[in-house]
């Protein structure tokens, strides 16, 4: 039996959390180091997994526990596996998780509890990406929600809305979404079990059985899943938790939430909803495209009207997720590739953005743009990180988000024409608000009250270095990202188009 790499990746933060539980609560430095080591082990292993993934073979690799029966009557197995869609997401989670630990280096209010919860959060997110069993997927998803709530209401900050409101809104929204999802999953399970005879909760098993579902069943099941995953990925008009939630959350949570948690929605949409219910997907695709474009344009304009940095990034992430929805709605190889890659790119960029905003807030105690200005002189490295994230956000060619957006544009322009043009026009507005925020925060005359500020240094540099490297390398060598994704999107798309042909559409 080969080394269970996925399980090790999954359990490293748990182990760190367990150790943390026994560390004295005054040992702040030790606590942070343990958390950093835990996430670093995961990061290193997931990098290893990412680069040893056999792209020529594709499909599921690093399979673990597909024969470990967990609940026999429901056909649940502890099935962990990674393919070209989940690997980038896993890597993203670990990149951001590792950076988030360092972005929270200055948390001195009950750090032990903070880092334990953070570790659990990271574990939950990773679990959703490597679970190949729908039940396990949902289980890990629910694991995620609770730490988020606690983290927001204890370590969050109150601005336009109180942190209690933000945490409540975030949690309830996600739970409502997952409730609809759960109904969809249960209905899918019941129907497929009736069709297949034996219960099977694994993705592949469900997809095979679901192929025999009637068109009507596929359509309403997909609608439930679309609502569930859609509110998770902040699809317009189910997005309003996102800006408020990010604004209220502490830096690390904003990073993980905007960076990866949101992507669970997009990931589920691709790997669960579309994969299992292609006929339903093709029915809903035009509506999804419209919602996606609405999200892009609407949230971009919304971001333009903001004066709080976190709100800007919050709306911006809604806008970027609009592209993902649009791409998924294309239902072709290019679009699906673009959707997954854009999730990766946006994750890295949003995490960097939030970590930099977190540092700005930590140092100046404000995120209100009119109170800021000229920070480029006082904190040049911070400014460089901020600008890097800002430029990636507006899709600057040469940074990681450009090629994913380009592929999305190709596919959506091809499939939806004029509608896509409105979406693509979002890049102009994005440039406008991102540059405005950057200019008003970093440039202009330096303010004397910030003269004493210290630039980021030491551990605080880690998010910038790690995420910045990914931004640049991913932008210069997009094939690193796309070859992996493509190796799994192609078979997935083949399965979908087969199903669509049998379904009589196309």
């Amino acid at each position, binding site marked *: 039996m080969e080394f269970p790499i996925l399980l090790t990746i999954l359990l490293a933060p748990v182990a760190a959390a367990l150790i943390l539980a026994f560390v004295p609560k005054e040992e702040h430095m030790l606590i942070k180091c343990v958390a950093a080591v835990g996430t670093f082990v995961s990061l290193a292993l997931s990098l290893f997994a990412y680069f040893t993934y056999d792209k020529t073979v594709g499909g599921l690799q690093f399979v673990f526990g597909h024969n470990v029966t967990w609940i026999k009557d429901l056909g649940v197995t502890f099935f962990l596996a990674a393919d070209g869609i989940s690997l980038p997401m896993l890597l993203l989670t670990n990149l951001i998780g590792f950076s988030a630990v360092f972005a929270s280096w200055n948390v001195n209010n009950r750090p032990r509890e903070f880092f334990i919860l953070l570790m659990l959060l990271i574990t939950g997110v990773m679990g959703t990406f490597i679970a190949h069993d729908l039940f396990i997927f949902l289980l890990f998803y629910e694991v995620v929600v609770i730490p988020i709530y606690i983290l927001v209401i204890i370590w969050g900050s109150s601005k336009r809305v109180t942190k209690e409101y933000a945490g409540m809104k975030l949690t309830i929204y996600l739970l409502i979404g997952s409730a609809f999802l759960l109904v969809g999953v249960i209905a899918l399970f019941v129907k497929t079990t009736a069709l297949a005879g034996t219960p099977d909760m694994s993705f592949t098993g469900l997809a095979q059985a679901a192929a025999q579902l009637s068109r009507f069943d596929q359509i309403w099941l997909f609608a439930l899943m679309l609502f569930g995953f859609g509110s998770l990925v902040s699809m317009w008009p189910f997005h309003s938790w996102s800006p408020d939630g990010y604004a209220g959350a502490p830096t690390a949570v904003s990073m993980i939430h905007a960076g990866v948690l949101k992507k669970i929605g997009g990931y589920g949409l691709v790997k669960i909803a579309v994969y299992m219910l292609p006929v339903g997907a093709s029915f809903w695709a035009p509506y999804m495209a419209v919602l996606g474009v609405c999200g892009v344009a609407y949230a971009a304009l919304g971001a333009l009207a903001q004066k709080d940095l976190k709100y800007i990034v919050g709306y911006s992430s809604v806008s970027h997720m609009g592209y993902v929805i649009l791409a998924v709605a294309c239902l072709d190889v290019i679009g699906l590739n673009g959707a997954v890659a854009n999730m990766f790119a946006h994750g890295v960029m949003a995490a960097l953005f939030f970590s930099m905003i977190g540092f700005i807030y930590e140092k100046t105690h404000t995120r209100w743009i009119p109170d800021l200005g000229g920070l480029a002189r006082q904190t040049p490295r911070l400014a460089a990180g901020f600008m890097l994230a800002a430029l990636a956000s507006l899709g*600057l060619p040469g940074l990681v988000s450009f090629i994913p957006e380009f592929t999305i544009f*190709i596919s959506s322009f091809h499939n939806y024409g004029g509608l896509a043009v409105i979406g693509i026009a979002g890049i102009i507005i994005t440039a406008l608000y991102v540059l405005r925020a950057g200019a008003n925060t970093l*440039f202009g005359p330096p303010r004397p009250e910030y003269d004493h500020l210290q630039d980021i240094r030491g551990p605080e540099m880690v998010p910038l270095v790690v995420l910045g490297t990914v931004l640049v390398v991913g932008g210069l060598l997009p094939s690193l990202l796309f070859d992996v994704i493509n190796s799994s999107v192609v078979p997935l798309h083949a399965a979908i188009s087969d199903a669509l042909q049998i379904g009589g559409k196309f």
Partner: protein
Amino acid sequence: MLVEFALYHAWLVPLLPALAFGVIVFLTRPWPKLSAIVAVGSMAVACFFATLAAYGVFTNHEFVEKPLVYATRWFSLGLPGMPEVQIDVGVQLDPTSAMMLFMVSFIATFIFLYSIGYMEGDPGFSVFFSYLSLFGASMLLLVISSNLLQMFVAWGLVGLCSYLLIGFYSHKISAREAAKKAFVTCRVADFGLLLGLLALQIVFGTLNLTELSEKIAHFEEYTTFGMLTLIAVLVFIGPIGKSGQFPLHVWLPDAMEGPTPVSALIHAATMVVAGVYLVGRTLFLFHEVPSAMQLVAVTGGFTALFAATIAITQREIKRILAYSTVSQLGYMMLALGVGSLTASMFHLWTHAFFKALMFLGAGSVLHALHHKADVWEMGGLYKKMPITTWTFVIGGLAIAGIPPFAGFWSKDEILVATLSEGHYVLFAVGAFTAFLTAFYMWRMIFLAFFGEEKPENHPHESPWTMTVPLVVLAVGALGAGWVGTPWHNVWAEWIFFGHPHHGPVNYGAMLLSIVLAAAGIYLAYMLYLKDAKKKRARRLAEWFGPVYRMLYNKYYIDELYLWFNHALVDGTARLMYLFDIYVVDGIVNGIGGFAKLSGDGLRVFQSGRLQNYALIFFLGVLAVAVLMAFTGPSAASLVLGGVK
């Protein structure tokens, strides 16, 4: 041997400055001198390779017909065997790109050198050189791109460098706003270009230049709408922004907020011509669509005239030069629009020398006068700054179109091309613009360098790092045009579209352009130098009051955009935001409120009083009893949930 190496390793040329960027950012930033040496050195080596490569191209006539292309896969989507999208990155060397490669690296080297003197003592010295190196790398990458997407990436990166360098004095609000304006304006244009690229990719399945040119040549339109026309127009929107064509020219004059070497390098010689270069590269596309060609020509001609009229009234030295750049870029577009790649690239080539020269000269003046920019406050500088003055005069003669200076030959080439294609109106526009150009340029020269000295100024000649580039570029401004004289046009043998064009020498046009240029200079001399005491210029301005004000305020286009941006875009944004917090969030909170309200409603029953509960309990018992009494026990057991 070395030439061969340079030809097949042309990617080294952009790579070297890129490495310099990395080295400066990560290693040598604390040591300004070292950073400068790294930047200039890498650019000089790049220039050396570029020269070798250009030499290799210009000694082998095969490359005219069949460009040297080598590329590698950047990324691809779909099955490995037959990808749905494959983007390559590579090098395409033909006379046009080789010329650009040489020109950009050559001018960049000298401007880098010049910057050492100009930026002396600036706290951001190293950062400045890192940006410059990044710019050099991106621009050179753009030039050698074999793929339109690769070009677009470089296009975006030069835009970024332009943004960073315009906003280099970031503590100045004006610089910050100018940088933002430049980026956003170009972004609007990039949007069009991006759509064009997408359409090309979708229709033709590739973005490689060579493949595209073949496919488009054999493309037949089946639809009446005209896919190609649409694509051509969309692609052209990009150059409109990048090359400062009307109506997206507004950013270019503001871009003069950047340090002067930046204005010379980016906003005169290289980046702004990227748009022209792009249209030149994709001329196979425009060539198929006459209406798009018409659009290019008209836009170019109009921009040339439009910018020239504004330049007449401006007072800041760099602003005048900026409008002049816009105007000259219009010329280049005009040439492309009438189908002459030769004339366009020729003007691009000569313009790079004399405009870079003039900007550097202006920079030298500003350096000496401590950034006093108004030409009316200068005067008589020729005594204290001889090298600057005389090189500037050479530039002025070149741009005005006085033979044998470089600008004359290229401008003449454009006018002749326009005439020979039968665009008489555009020819007239071009000719009149030539007159205006000579006038406003010499207005500036007379006001700034001649006339009376102003006692409050204490000018001094600049250090050698600044004057050497001036002299070198002055030589270029003098001699760069000799490769394309109408009598022996070497240029046209190498750089052309379709087939080399060899018309008869048009002495009439030549004479006309000389006369117009001379007339412009003479008029400027009369108004601003000879009879400056009579204040004719002021009276003229008063006579044409409204016109003057309109010109001085640049036709109020900036105000229009500002209004559009603030009233419409921001207004919509605010509206959307209000919609978001009151309607969308209102619904969300409304649902929450509904839950709370129903909870409040049900709370009435939760009085906390024992007897109240007993009452309700008995009501429940009664209900069950009634049910059992009137429907029989089976129905009741159904309701009670299987209690047997």
